[in-house]
């Protein structure tokens, strides 16, 4: 068990590599209750959230989900989030565990003084289990009382699982097909056990980190933070800065005009060694950047990583040298994602 964002979390149940393979080949389950669940509702909920979030969620259809970032007025990334539209006047925002307070104070800072928006943090009353992998549909179907086909990718539906009504979303953080379900805390243990009985393999934080890295998904606090803007992080397509009411809009429009001095790239190790968070990246002589994430990829049988490098070193195939405890080990810039599932 390790401390993570204020929670004690298991790094692994049986082994990181076995758990990673289970998600790629069959189905794994993750206790992701540490992620926040914040409901934003009211007549102005959509208008309010659109001022905060990087896309216009008023345009989001009911029952759909959208990934994006929450930026401060300087364009720095406070958190990355998924927003679900639960009903015409009700949204749910998912903050990272370690950013719940930062998100809460940011939302409260801009909350209108009237009664048009209410914020209800339901994180403590509900749990969340991610069911991920090519067999996730089959496993969850066995416990669902409605047809899971109704939950398409990036959609959310309320339905009964193990006889209990809960939100079921077709989202995840692994690069596989999968679901995230939100049972209430009093039934979650039963749901967890039943998922295991139907073939799901329990997976910890270690496998989650390997899987998201293989899928080229960023981890806030590692690969981005409030000193990084979304253009540097390569998240351009999740930001619609052309909205007058969007709080960091003006700043982000200016940033978009400038070529970023550093950009996030993926890289694959050519020499032997594993890059880790904080290791320097050089061009062989001069330091040109820093590693933000690194691991072995059991799926690709290579060591991979993410890091920020100076402009001029971002194109595919560029030679980099990762300084691993005093030694310069060769790596090359690789297009993201490292792993893309066949559909």
């Amino acid at each position, binding site marked *: 068990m390790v401390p993570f964002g204020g929670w004690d979390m298991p790094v*692994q149940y049986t*082994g990181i*590599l076995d758990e990673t393979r289970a998600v790629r080949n069959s189905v794994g389950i993750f206790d992701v209750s540490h992620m926040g669940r914040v409901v934003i509702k009211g007549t102005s909920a959509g208008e309010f959230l659109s001022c905060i979030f990087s896309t216009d969620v008023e345009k989001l259809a009911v029952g759909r989900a959208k990934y994006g970032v929450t930026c401060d007025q300087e364009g720095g990334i406070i958190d990355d989030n998924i927003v679900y539209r639960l009903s015409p006047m009700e949204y749910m925002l998912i903050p990272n565990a370690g950013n719940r307070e930062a998100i809460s104070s940011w939302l409260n800072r801009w909350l209108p003084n009237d009664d048009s928006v209410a914020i209800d943090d339901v994180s403590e009353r509900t749990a969340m289990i991610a069911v991920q992998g090519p067999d996730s549909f089959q496993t969850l179907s066995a416990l669902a009382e409605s047809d899971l086909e109704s939950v398409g990718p990036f959609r959310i539906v309320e339905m009964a699982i193990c006889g209990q009504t809960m939100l079921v979303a077709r989202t995840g953080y692994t690069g596989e097909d999968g679901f995230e379900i939100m049972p209430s805390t009093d039934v979650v243990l039963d749901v967890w056990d039943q998922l295991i009985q139907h073939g799901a393999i329990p997976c910890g934080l*270690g496998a989650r980190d*390997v899987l998201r890295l293989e899928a080229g998904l960023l981890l806030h606090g590692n690969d981005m933070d409030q000193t990084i803007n979304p253009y540097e992080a390569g998240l351009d397509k999740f930001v619609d800065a052309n909205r007058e009411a969007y709080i960091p809009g003006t700043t982000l429009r200016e940033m978009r005009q400038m070529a970023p001095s550093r950009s996030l790239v993926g890289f694959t190790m050519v020499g032997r*060694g*594993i890059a880790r968070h904080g290791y320097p990246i050089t061009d062989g002589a001069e330091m040109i950047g820093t590693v933000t994430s690194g691991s*072995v990829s059991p799926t690709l049988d290579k060591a991979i990583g993410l890091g920020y490098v100076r402009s001029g070193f971002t194109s595919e195939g560029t030679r980099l040298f990762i300084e691993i405890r005093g030694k310069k080990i060769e790596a090359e810039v690789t297009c993201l994602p490292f792993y893309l599932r066949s559909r």
Partner: protein
Amino acid sequence: MSYPADIKYTKEHEWVRVESDTEVVIGITTYAADELGDVVFVELPEPGAKVVSHEQFGEIESVKAVSELYSPVTGTVIQRNEELSDAPEIVNDSAYEQGWMIKVEVADTSSLDELMSAEEYEQFLES
């Protein structure tokens, strides 16, 4: 978990097996291997290299983390386990046999007396 009685243990979770009056074999304990999780990379000194008691002789890396290997003895490396370079997971599967790391020539094996027995190591782990 049981620890073989015919080998000595260190507080850094290495083990030493005496092969002859001047030769010892070194590896890491099952406790260390389990704590590390899936081992993916082991870096060991080449034959001829000197190792010094309580000093680092190599590195072991798992998916989770990298950690240093400390030598329980002072001497000269005479052989290293080349199999670990292609199959480091052997350390998880067979920490005391196939997962050995280096063979070291030592002046004498009396310095091993200060190391822990299996029983003492188990007590150390519990404390």
